[in-house]
């Protein structure tokens, strides 16, 4: 279900009931190379037809963002959707609330950050295919993650991980190949982002590496990107 022809600009559906936001963001995303279509709520968005990617607010009149995701996925349409959450929710809670959104961004966000999310999600998505974020089990080599049970195995041996480490592994594995800044991981996964608390992220990455036997200097799974953040470097497939 996609409208892209090889050289056309990707069709981006921007859904928010606040006109002040859609006007500014629409102009910005239009200049960044997208064919932007604006909808004022989930119902209008459902009526707007096919899209290559949707950027959608959560709190809206009539059909809200979560209901929009559910209805689109129920139709078997797998085009990526990025939700703009306005309540400080951790990834754990967001992911539990809506299976099928590809990424989340807390308002207010840096428009550049949104743009890099859009690009990453589009790069990852295969038109017409169920995205990793909608899968229940993920596999990367010998590593298997059961997302709903929050359990992980390496070469058929179950791993002992803290709940936060599993949440981090879940996020990294469902967004492979993308660079995630510490700040972004912290606010998305922990639900708080007080200055100077990003070491919490480093500690969980260290825990994951220890349990996975991943050598930071030549990692198989989690790679450190030069003080910028972390990236899950191994390919991930739906298991």
């Amino acid at each position, binding site marked *: 279900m996609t409208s892209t022809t090889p050289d056309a600009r990707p069709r981006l559906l921007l859904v928010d009931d606040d006109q002040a936001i859609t006007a500014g963001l629409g*102009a910005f995303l239009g200049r960044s190379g997208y064919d932007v279509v604006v909808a004022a709520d989930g119902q209008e968005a459902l009526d707007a037809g096919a899209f290559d990617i949707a950027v959608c607010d959560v709190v809206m009149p009539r059909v809200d963002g979560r209901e929009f995701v559910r209805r689109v996925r129920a139709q078997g349409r797998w085009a990526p959707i990025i939700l703009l959450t306005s309540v400080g929710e951790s990834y754990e809670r967001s992911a539990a609330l809506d299976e099928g959104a590809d990424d989340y961004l807390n*308002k*207010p966000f840096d428009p550049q950050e949104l743009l890099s999310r859009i690009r990453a999600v589009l790069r990852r998505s295969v038109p017409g295919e169920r995205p990793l974020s909608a899968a229940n089990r993920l596999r990367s080599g010998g590593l298997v993650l059961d997302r709903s049970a929050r359990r992980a195995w390496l070469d058929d041996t179950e791993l002992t991980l803290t709940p936060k480490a599993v949440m981090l592994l879940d996020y990294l594995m469902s967004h492979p190949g993308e660079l995630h800044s510490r700040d972004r991981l912290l606010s998305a996964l922990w639900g*708080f982002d*007080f200055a100077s608390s990003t*070491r*919490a992220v480093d500690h969980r990455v260290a825990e994951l590496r220890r349990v996975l036997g991943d050598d930071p200097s030549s990692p198989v799974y989690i790679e450190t990107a030069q003080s910028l953040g972390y990236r899950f470097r191994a390919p991930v497939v739906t298991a």
Partner: protein
Amino acid sequence: MRYVVAVAPLLAGVIVAVVLGVAGERRELLIGTPLPLLIGLVGALVSGVALAVLLLVRSGRRGAARVAAAHAEGVATGAAAERDAHRRFLARLDHELKNPVTAIRATIAGLGDDDPALAVVDDQARRLATLVGDLRELAELETRPLDLEPVDLERVVQDAVAAVAQQRPEAAGRLSVTVDRVPWPIPELMADPDLLGLAVENVVGNAAKFSADGPIEVRLREDGGHAVVEVADAGRGVPLLAVDAVFDELARAGNARDVPGSGIGLALVRTILRQHGGDVSLRSREGAGTVVTLRLPVVARR
């Protein structure tokens, strides 16, 4: 009403006596009582009166204690209700500010103009959002369940000190950590290591921020079922009048205005410690230095 009932027999007696006296009643009642029995009865009567007085005093005290307890409960309920209202207000304020700030930032990005004045607007919008967001997160921490796991407090402290040393290289040489291990080390705690690290780092960071020179001592010990972390500096100190307020949100002492900061730090420290069943206190002398004490209950692991 009880007094009326109590006095009624006396009144009735007096009335009957007056009536009989006026009517010229002259008869007398003579009771022959053995002296030992009489003395025994008098003794019993005196004891009875004494006991009655004692019971009266005791019930009065109980009543006062009940009133005091009810008062304390009322105050606590009121304070909790106030915090609750405060929390909800911050959540609403945060929610209502998010869309305008998102719109401001989106509009500036949409202009595609690299005018430095627009960068200032963008920066200030972000600052505003961060402040309100921090206040809301702080309020949320008060009610949010902790992610508890076994924590080695010494590691958390060493780690926070290392982080401050890295952020403020000028203070690195002044930082020292001492840990009491004799007669017993601090047992492993059940705590949220991320939040605890944040609290310790905030306090150590403050010590580095507000002391231009002199040692910064971080001391770790066990004391009567509590793990105690003390962070002492020889810095500018907190003015006496500001000591009570430093743990309030956005409160900044009068002599701290030249140092950048959000005014969130110590409020955050207090919230984190209280959520763990502990607390934080501060002693300071202006011009001499400050010691901040974090106390955490050591609970045996299940």
